[in-house]
């Protein structure tokens, strides 16, 4: 019985692996860059900046599925020095370090 449950879990994981791997791999194998029309190339060039913003905005402005625009939104405040340092130094590590420092000091102060 337990063996069977383990088998079910294992097969579920394999299924999860397949449905995750296929979208990650299929475009790389099937699409060739040379056959793309010009506008598709342009469109794809804008995908990274669009994806990054689409991922980032909710992580700063929402918490638990709700808008979090109050003054105690520590992440939103920490984003300001991170953004500034990233622009000034062009260093990702510096930007992340400043953000982490800001958040940990903020929490230390009780926010």
């Amino acid at each position, binding site marked *: 019985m337990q063996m069977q449950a383990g088998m079910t879990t294992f097969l579920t994981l394999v299924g999860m692996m397949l449905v*995750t791997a296929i*979208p*990650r*791999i299929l475009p790389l*194998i099937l699409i060739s860059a040379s056959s793309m029309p010009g506008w598709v190339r342009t*469109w794809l060039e*804008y995908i990274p900046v669009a994806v*990054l913003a689409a*991922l980032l905005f909710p992580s700063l402005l929402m918490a638990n599925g709700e808008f979090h625009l109050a003054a105690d939104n520590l992440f939103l405040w920490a984003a300001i020095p991170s953004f500034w340092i990233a622009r000034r130094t062009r260093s990702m590590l510096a930007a992340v370090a400043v953000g982490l420092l800001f958040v940990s000091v903020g929490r230390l102060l009780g926010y």
Partner: protein
Amino acid sequence: MADKEWKYSYNRGNVYCNNKRREGFALRMEQDTRSSIAKDKNINNAVLAGIVKAIPVVLGYLTVGFAYGVLARNAGLSVFFTVLMSLLVYAGSAQLISVSFFAASANPLTIILTTFIVNIRHLLMAAAMVPHLEGWRPLQKVAFGLELTDETFGLHSVGFSEGKPDKSTVFAINITSQLAWISGSLLGAVLGGMIVDIRSLGLDFALPGMFIALLVFQLKSIKHVLVALAAGLLSLILLSSGIQNWNVLIAACLAAGIGVVLCKCKQE
């Protein structure tokens, strides 16, 4: 006597020649080893560069992976399956969502279908990587795709836009990131009961902080700024109107379309 002398000098000459040849050989050997050492050094540097680039991802993945490990154990998954999922599936949000399904003993097909829907956004990211992987062998593309996550995609899209990075750097980023994810899961699964206060270190800001920097590096023109604003706002609107899981895919597709329109307008 003369014969002997000639033999002697001939032998000496031969020895001399042999020595010269040996020296030449040794010199060539030395050059070979030196260039292979230089090559090794270059590869080592490229690998090291990838590991350094992955540091923010490592911080974030250790943190989120730990949380996943704790939750997975609480949901009744064994340590083995908890870590195996990080090895096979390697997708943060999908794994966290699946854990709540496992806790509720949901139908395996429901779990798999939900995973598919949560991860379908990677279709778009993989497509955006296509122009950068021209000339790669199919197996290298498969290996690259298997470790394509939101975070490694962010790192690679900036890396590729700044020039052609070494393949060793690209794979070092991917492998380092997944190792951090697996380690985090294992630590969480094993130390589950122990309360580690990651919040006080601010480590949950590692990934948002990284995305801020990556976004800044991608803001190359006013058009990019407009596309980013459109994508971010669309993503928020979709999320707040209850369209979860699809928000990144839909928002990015539409916003990048705005970029194409802006480009067309400028040309005409």
